């Protein structure tokens, strides 16, 4: 399941909806990305997330399908917010449920790494120095690469 939304989310409620009455689940791994205040020389006052409506959902659906193919998952949820967010606010949720904890952990980390390099979102940071578009990090590419099989298009 994927959702792209402006609104905040409640982790407990999302987990309850994800697991439901499925008693085959033995573990749920959740990652929540949060707006960090310290990102460069100046403290961040806010950031705005722009995205590509249509393609975002398509890419999230694709990667969810890939995770479900690679790991035995009983449930999978990605929520990514857009719009203006302040330090401490939640940006993204990735939750994976599986019979066994290792599948849940690996799939969650795979999805999180992948979001950083493939999901069409862009962060505009605001600080005392004015607005600044965040630059992509090589370390994120490296993190995503360790999951790659033989993806042709970059």
């Amino acid at each position: 399941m994927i959702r792209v939304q402006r609104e905040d989310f409640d982790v407990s409620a999302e987990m309850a909806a994800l697991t439901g009455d499925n008693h085959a689940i033995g573990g749920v791994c959740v990652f929540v990305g949060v707006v960090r205040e310290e990102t460069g020389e100046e403290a961040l006052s806010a950031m705005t997330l722009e995205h590509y409506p249509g393609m975002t959902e398509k890419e999230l659906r694709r990667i969810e399908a890939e995770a479900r193919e690679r790991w035995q998952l009983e449930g999978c949820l990605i929520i990514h917010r857009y719009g203006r967010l302040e330090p401490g606010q939640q940006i993204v949720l990735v939750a994976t449920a599986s019979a066994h904890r290792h599948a849940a952990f690996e799939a969650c980390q795979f999805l999180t790494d992948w979001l950083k390099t493939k999901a069409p979102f862009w962060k505009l940071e605001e600080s005392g120095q004015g607005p600044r578009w965040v630059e992509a990090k090589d370390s994120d590419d490296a993190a995503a690469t360790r999951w790659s099989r033989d993806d042709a298009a970059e």
Partner: protein
Amino acid sequence: MKIVYFAWLREKAGVSEEQVSPPATVKDVKGLIEWLCGHGAGHAEALADLSVVRVAVNQEYVHLDHPVEAGDEIALFPPVTGG
């Protein structure tokens, strides 16, 4: 053909989306970008460094040699920074 721009490419180009009709000589993404650079200083600046330009045709990531044709939606944007 619809071109959409995001993030600082959008700001530099000064437009978020536009309908264009390139000549028949424009056959792929690379040709399209070269042609768009002639549309003004903003476009030229936005597309000056192809190493930081990512391209999607009909919402799928593609390389510069990917063909383009009438009716396509072509998105130009910097490397993504979500998550």
